[in-house]
Structure formats: C-alpha cells, structure tokens
C-alpha cells in the first residue's frame, strides 16, 4: 500500500464524514417558511423578550431557520395562511325582517408574536378545526352585525358593514390571536320579499322609462317612416309625371316622324304641280309671244300703214283746200285795205291842213295878247315889289336900331366897363380925330406900313401922350353927353321909320 493510496483513502474518509455531518445537520435544521411560524419548545429554549419572560416559555421563529435537537426539543409549525369560512345564518335585521344570510369570513393568524403566541396556545393542535370554531364564533357575531344593520346598508354600505364587523369581533379576535381580513355577505335570502319589493319601484320606473323611450323611438321611427313613405310616393309621382311627359314627347316625335313621310310626299307633289303650272304658264306665254310676234304685230303694222297712209292723204287734201281758201281771203282783204288806206290818208291830209291854218292864226293873236298882258303884269309886280322891299328895309332898320338901343341900355345897366369899351369902339373915329389933333403940327407924314402901321402909330401916340386910357376916358366923357342926348332922341323916335339912313 503506497502513500498515495493512504492519502486517497483518508481524503475519501473525510469527505464521507463531512457528508454524514451535513446530513445530520440537515436533519436537525428547521427553516420557517414565510407563511408559517415555528413554535419551538423544550431543552434550553431561550426567550429573549422580556414581556414574554413570565409566559409559558416557548420560542417563536419566523422567516429563518433554527437547529432543533431531536428528543430534547420539538418544533411545531403554525400556518399563517389565510383561511376562509362559509357562514349561513338565519337572523333578523335592524328593521325586524327575518333573512337568511350567507357570508364568507376571511381571516388569518396575526403576524406579531403576541398574536402568534395566542393562536399557538389555542389552535396549534387543532388547526384543522379552526374553521369550525370560527364558524361558530362568527355565526353569533353575524347575528349581531346583521341586527345592527338594515337591509339597504347591508346591500349598499360596505363601510358600515366592516365597521360593524370590527365593532363586534375586535376583542374576541385579539383574544384568539386572529385578524379578520374581510367579511363578505354573499347572499341574503329574504322570505318576506322585501328586497324584491325594494327594487320594484325602481324597476317599474326603469321599465316605464324604457317603455316610454321605446314608444318615443317607435313613434319617431314611425314618423320617419311615414315621412319617408310620403317622400317616396312624391318621388314616384314625380317620376311618373316625368315619364308621362317624356312618353308624350316620344309619341309626338313618333307621330311627327310618321306624318313626315306623307307630308314630304304632298310637299313634293305640290312642288311638282307648281312647277308644272309654271311650265304651262311659260308655254302659254311662249305661244302668246309667238302669236304676238307672228300674227298681231304684222297685222298691226299693216293696219298702221294703211291708217297712216289714209291720214296722210286726208291731211294733204285738207291742207290744200285750206291753203286755197286762205289765199283767196287774204287777197280780198288786201284789196279792201289798200282802198281804205288811200281814202283815209286823203281825208287826214285835208283836215290837218285846215287845222294848221286855224291854229296858226289863233296862236298869233293869243301870243300878242298874252305878251301885252304879261308885260303889264310884270311891270306892276316890279313896282309893287320894289315898294314893299323898301318899306321892309326901312322897317327892319328902325327895328334894328331900337333893339340896339335897348340892348345898350341893358348892357349899361349890367356892365359899365363893357359899355364904355363898346362906346369907345363905336366912337373910335372921333377919338382918332381928336388924337390926330396931336399930330396937328405934322405937315407931312408918310405911313409906311399901311393900315396896320397907322393903327400902331395911333396906339403909340395915344400911349406916348401919357394919357392912355385916361385920355380915352376923358375923350369919351367929353363926347358922352352928346352921345347920351342922341340916345334919348333915338329912343324917342323908336317907332318911326327912318328911310334916310
């Protein structure tokens, strides 16, 4: 036996020993599942919790594993699973109505150690019988729960139900270490028909509203159907009317088409007749033309020729006879005229001669008498006219003088200076004469410049004399008295005719 073999055997022995130890430990080790609690009691069980120190002294393991010494310790499993119990209870509601209630209670062991300990003490060996206990328990509780509720609350108000469940079962559940997850009321058997009747008004209302709605919908549907039917009928009517109209048009067209054949034929025949008539007319016209040209025109020509010839012969004979008669008449008239003219000429000549002689004699006498008379008259007229003219002249002169005097008097009254000037002008020759006396010592004066030179000289002489207008006025005053005297005389003799001037 080699060393290697010894080593191999020892290693195999170790492995076997280890496997044996593992198997033993595996048998001793207990693990708590999540839904269960291990209740361990026996040798050396330490209880750490102070509040359970004075208790019965067992160990509660949840969620982990622990070694259990066989023969000295025991490990029991308490299920923490949810459990359900069906209940069927005849009870009386708050309103006093007898009902039979079927319900389900869902409960479990509480998760805390106190609840587990309570439950372990009560149910560890009768976990199968836990449901019976709960059934009995909740049958009583359900009576109290249902007795605190009305049927309506049971049906509708879940909050009230759970509240009642808690209210009635809380302390007892704590004692048992259980918690109620849910209480479900599954069915309520109502012998009095309360629930049925409870729903009836609502059901009736629902049914009524359903019927009303159905009726309304039916009515609306019927109305719509009627409207639709009416529209359909109207459409059918319209369609038929249009079809009839189209049929009438088709018939009309067909009748027209059927009549168009005979009509065309008649029209064509009419055209033929018209053309034939026209042809006949043309033929007649042709025959007439031919007759005209061949018969009538020659006959007319011949008749015209005959008539023209006869007319010409007759006219010629008439003209000839007329010419002869005219010639005879004219010849007789010419003879008579010639005789009468000769006689008239003779008589006229005689008469004219006699009248000329008588006229000459008378004219001579008359002329002489008229000449004498005219001469006398002329002389008398001349004398008369001369006298008259002289008288008129004298009278006019007197009148003029009188007017002049009157005017002078009026002027004197109005403007002395003007009158003086006037007087001066009128007396100019005498003034000149008086002035000329200044030239008395001049023996012989030759005036070279004619009349103008004379007047210049006089003016100069007058101005040189130093007297000027004063001299003139003086002269005028000297002559003024005789002038006024003469004026008085002339005014006194105003009415007389003074022929001597």
């Amino acid at each position, binding site marked *: 036996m080699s060393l290697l073999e010894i080593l191999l055997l020892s290693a195999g022995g170790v492995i076997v020993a280890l496997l044996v130890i593992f198997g033993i430990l595996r048998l001793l080790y207990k693990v708590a599942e999540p839904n269960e609690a291990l209740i361990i009691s026996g040798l050396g069980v330490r209880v750490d919790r102070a509040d359970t120190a004075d208790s019965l002294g067992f160990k509660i393991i949840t969620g982990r594993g622990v070694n259990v010494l066989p023969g000295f310790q025991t490990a029991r499993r308490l299920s923490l699973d949810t459990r359900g119990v069906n209940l069927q209870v005849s009870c009386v509601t708050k309103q006093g109505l007898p009902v039979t209630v079927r319900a389900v209670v869902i409960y479990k062991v509480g998760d805390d150690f106190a609840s587990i300990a309570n439950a372990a003490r009560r149910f560890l060996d009768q976990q199968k019988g836990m449901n019976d206990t709960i059934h009995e328990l909740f049958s009583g509780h359900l009576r109290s729960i249902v007795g605190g509720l009305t049927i309506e609350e049971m049906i509708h108000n879940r909050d009230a139900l759970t509240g009642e469940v*808690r209210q009635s079962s809380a302390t007892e559940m*704590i004692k048992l270490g259980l918690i109620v997850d849910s209480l479900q009321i599954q069915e309520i058997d109502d012998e009095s028909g309360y629930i049925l009747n409870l729903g009836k008004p609502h059901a009736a209302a629902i049914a009524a509203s359903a019927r009303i709605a159905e009726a309304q919908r039916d009515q609306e549907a019927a109305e719509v159907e009627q409207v639709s039917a009416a529209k359909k009928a109207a459409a059918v009517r319209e369609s038929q009317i249009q079809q009839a109209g189209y049929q009438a048009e088709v018939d009309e067209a067909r009748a027209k088409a059927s009549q168009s054949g005979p009509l065309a034929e008649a029209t064509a025949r009419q055209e033929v007749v018209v053309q034939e008539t026209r042809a006949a007319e043309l033929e007649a016209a042709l025959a007439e033309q031919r007759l005209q040209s061949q018969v009538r025109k020659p006959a007319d020509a011949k008749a015209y020729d005959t008539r023209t010839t006869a007319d010409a012969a007759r006219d010629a004979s008439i003209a000839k006879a007329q010419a002869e008669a005219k010639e005879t008449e004219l010849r007789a008239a010419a003879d008579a005229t010639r005789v009468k003219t000769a006689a008239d000429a003779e008589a006229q000549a005689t008469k004219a001669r006699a009248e000329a002689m008588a006229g000459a004699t008378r004219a001579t006498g008359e002329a002489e008498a008229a000449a004498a008379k005219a001469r006398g008259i002329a002389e008398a007229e001349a004398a008369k006219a001369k006298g008259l003219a002289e008288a008129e002249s004298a009278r006019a002169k007197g009148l003029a003088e009188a007017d002049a005097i009157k005017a002078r008097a009026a002027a004197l009254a109005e403007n002395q200076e003007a009158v003086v000037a006037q007087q001066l002008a009128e007396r100019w020759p005498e003034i000149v004469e008086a002035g000329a006396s200044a030239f008395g010592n001049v023996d012989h004066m030759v005036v070279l410049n004619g009349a103008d030179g004379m007047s210049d000289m006089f003016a100069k002489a007058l101005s040189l004399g130093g007297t000027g207008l004063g001299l003139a006025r003086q002269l005028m005053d000297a002559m003024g008295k005789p002038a006024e005297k003469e004026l008085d005389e002339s005014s006194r003799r105003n009415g007389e005719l003074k022929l001597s001037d």
Partner: protein
Amino acid sequence: MIGSRGRVTGTIGPGLVGEVLLNVRGGTEAFYAYPADPDETYSSGTQVLVVDFEPPRTVYVERWQPLSR
C-alpha cells in the same frame, strides 16, 4: 410601532372601533385604532400618527400634523 405614520381605513371616533393601516415588519397590517383624544373623530383617508400601542393589535392615534403646516 409608536411614531409610525398611517392612514385611516375605518372611521375612528368615540364609540367606534376604527382601523389604521400601518407599515410594520416589512408589510402593511391593519390595526384596531382609537383616538388618543377621546373626543376626536378621524374619517377614512386621514393621515394619523401612532402615539400609543397596546399589544397585540391596538393603537392610539392623533391627527398627523405635517411640518410645513
């Protein structure tokens, strides 16, 4: 358990046995609940604070007061 915050699942009030859902032992469990102040009433859905615990399954609660309020 004391100091846990939970939600009311059954009305808590005088004369009633209420229910509170709490986070414990890695899960949620329902506990019977009573008001710490006997006159208070907490309806379902109210957040509450556990102020006392009575083994095994009874708690006393008062209304949860968020810090922000």
